[in-house]
């Protein structure tokens, strides 16, 4: 049943991705900006321009370009990037780990901080603690992630230069790792020096990404917890003599988690989108900064590949979200 559901959701993703592919292919050709015009050198004449169009296959009708591209894409080949002359699939897979690790770290921070604030706010409901939590989350929500990023650069990069400002690792250090999952691999291989270095580089972008989500989680979870704490089972537990901490953490939290998980899932997709700006600010080499370069350079094959990747990530997040509902709520698991 469980596997069938996964399979069904994956099959549903195919027409979605196909639709995205068609839409993106057409859109990137409709918006202004000819990639060949970007590389016309001084001294070129019309013949050179035509030759360059032919070289990149841009002289063919759009439908013809699409059939060629779609045929290759079905075999996993998304073409060659115009600017980097690298295979698009390879290029994206070499950069995806950096973004996935950043998103994972940011989401972990957001859940931990947001959850802790919600629990604190519930525990000290009606007192100064709740007011403080509400004030903090309100302030954090009112500042966009990129502004947090710039603020962190000034504070922790310049005034208190304790954290590196840009990149993913110290460029003077030879990493010698087998994969591009630098944080994960260095951690599993007990290369603590590299792990610490990578974490230091990820700290500011991850926290900048995490803060707005943490505040959102704190608000929704606190509201859910407040509702649960008013339920009969919670009151009964209190009457039985269990402490407020115990009721919140051991009984109410699990029930309150479902709407929070739903919100977190939706916000995770925004978190992935938010990496584009944050990666640019921190010169973090993930698919977000790759996307900006691709758009600036009108690198059509790369733009198409990246948008499909983002779409696939969103679909997978939604799938994981659905599965997590089932894990949290037995009623959904058993129909």
């Amino acid at each position: 049943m469980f596997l069938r559901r996964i399979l069904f959701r994956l099959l549903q993703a195919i027409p979605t991705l196909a639709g995205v592919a068609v839409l993106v292919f057409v859109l990137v050709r409709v918006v202004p900006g000819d990639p060949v015009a970007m590389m016309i050198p001084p001294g070129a004449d019309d013949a050179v321009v035509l030759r360059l169009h032919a070289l990149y296959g841009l002289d063919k009708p759009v439908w013809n370009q699409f059939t060629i591209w779609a045929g290759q894409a079905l075999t996993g080949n998304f073409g060659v990037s115009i600017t980097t002359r690298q295979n698009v699939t390879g290029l994206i897979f070499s950069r995806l780990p950096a973004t996935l690790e950043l998103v994972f770290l940011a989401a972990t921070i957001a859940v931990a901080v947001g959850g802790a604030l919600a629990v604190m706010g519930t525990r000290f409901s009606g007192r100064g603690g709740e007011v403080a939590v509400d004030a903090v989350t309100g302030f954090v929500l009112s500042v966009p992630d990129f502004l947090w990023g710039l603020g962190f650069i000034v504070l922790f990069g310049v005034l208190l230069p304790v954290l590196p400002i840009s990149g993913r690792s110290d460029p003077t250090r030879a990493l010698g790792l087998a994969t591009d999952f630098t944080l994960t691999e260095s951690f599993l291989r007990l290369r603590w020096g590299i792990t610490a270095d990578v974490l230091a580089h990820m700290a500011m972008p991850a926290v900048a990404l995490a803060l707005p989500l943490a505040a959102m989680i704190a608000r929704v979870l606190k509201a859910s917890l407040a509702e649960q704490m008013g339920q009969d089972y919670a009151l009964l537990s209190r009457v039985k003599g269990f402490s407020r901490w115990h009721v919140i953490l051991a009984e109410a939290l699990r029930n309150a988690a479902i709407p929070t998980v739903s919100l977190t899932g939706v916000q995770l997709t925004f978190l992935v989108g938010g990496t584009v700006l944050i990666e640019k600010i921190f010169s973090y080499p993930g698919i977000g900064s790759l996307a900006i370069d691709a758009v600036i350079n009108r690198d059509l094959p790369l733009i198409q590949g990246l948008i499909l990747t983002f779409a696939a990530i969103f679909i997978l997040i939604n799938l994981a979200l659905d599965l997590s509902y089932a894990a949290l709520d037995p009623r959904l698991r058993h129909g």
Partner: protein
Amino acid sequence: MNLTRRGLVASGLTLAAANRLIPLRAARAEGDTVTIAYHVGLPAWDPTVGPSAVNPTIQSIYQSVFDQYIGQNPDLSFTGGLLEKWGWNDAGTGIWMDVRQGAVWHDGSPVTPDDVVWSLTRAGDPKGGNPIQFVWGNLSNFKVEGHRVTADAKQYDPALFKWMAFLTGYVLPKAYFEKVGPEGFEKKPIGSGPYMVDAFERNAFLRLKANPHYWGGEPAIETVVFKFVTDASARVAEIESGSSDVTLEIPYEEYDRLKKKSGLKGVTTPVSDIGMIFITNVDPVMLDANVRHAMVKSVDKKLLVDKLLRGYGVPIDTLEAPEYEAYDPSIKTPYDPKGAAKLMAASGYSKDKPAKFTIQTTRGFKPKDYEMIQAIVGMWRHVGIDASIEVYEIAKHFELRAAHKLAPAAFYNWGNAIGDPTTSTGFAMFSHSPHSAWHSDDVDALINPLWGERDEAKRIAGWKAVDRYVADHALVLPLLQYVQQIVHKAGLNVVPHISGALQPQRFTRA
């Protein structure tokens, strides 16, 4: 697969054990290191094909790793590269080039005349993807005699050897390239330049090591790191925090602030990059010479430089900057708002009944570009010109320019690192060039004989005459020459290059 806690721990321990068995390649880089917070990333390594090959902003990196056929000094004068001597034969039908002896590739193999022939042949192949193929395709029938290479030329090109110091004018290693192929070359590029590639992480950093066997002498700085920091505020933070030793392309205000800070220094130079406004003769209003002259006369370029660019610019009156070969200081288009208003009145325009057209500009592509156009539009308003600003991206500009569909006025910055008039006035004003905006037979008639002119003095005089004609008829509005600012740590000497290329091989310790 069931992932249990015990299984996870076991996997971790296995990986940890494996880690002990795998020899660590990691080693902290040692020695003298200079880190540059660089404003653009490096998309691709082959400096002769694709869009990167004609991207002026990454030539600094290419010039660190690869040698050009002919080199260029910081003042734009030419010097030996992998060619020691060069020239045209007496008849102007072919060229000769003496290849430098003693130069070696980064893998230790010698640079040979075959490498030069192969590089030029590849560059001239129409299917090879070299954007400047139309220049290199002029050469054929290469012959090697000792260290001399000769070739036939389809036509005399006075700028041919200058192109050898310009975009795509790099010599690549024939044997290595054929062995590893284009993809292998992208993964592990080698050249014969002053620095060797040690590590490269796309969009993150490039680490270079000094080439101890460089024919021009080993560079003073052992390790150079280009950190790709594309956000200007992050570059400011990099240099201010001490994380980087050198940076460039930062806001003028930040440059003025940083250069006064203890431990930092600033160095500036005018560069071969000018700001200009194309005038396109597609709109009837631009066919009125009075309007064009009024557009030129009513712009106070000195004010723009002083107030908007904080003095980091040089007002210009032609498309030739003072360092270019065909620069003629006697050509002047003085600021004269009263004269401009009279010209507009003569054509029936006034503040109340202004001439209307659109001016296109980028916003943030060059420092203060949009603000500069706003100021110019304000100046024009006083003489009876009501221009509406349209902001577009640079990709759109290129597309419109190539299609001759730019608005009547369009802001652009034009680079010309070799300082030759063909690559400034020539391609900007010749109607058959996709880069020109003003298309007219009279200008073409002046330019046409100059493409193949063999008498250099006559050629330069001819281009000066074209510049005078263009200024006299107000066919373009040259604004200013940009000034590059570089901030660096006080313990470093940085020599700026008028081409704008930041060359770490010229760095020394103070």
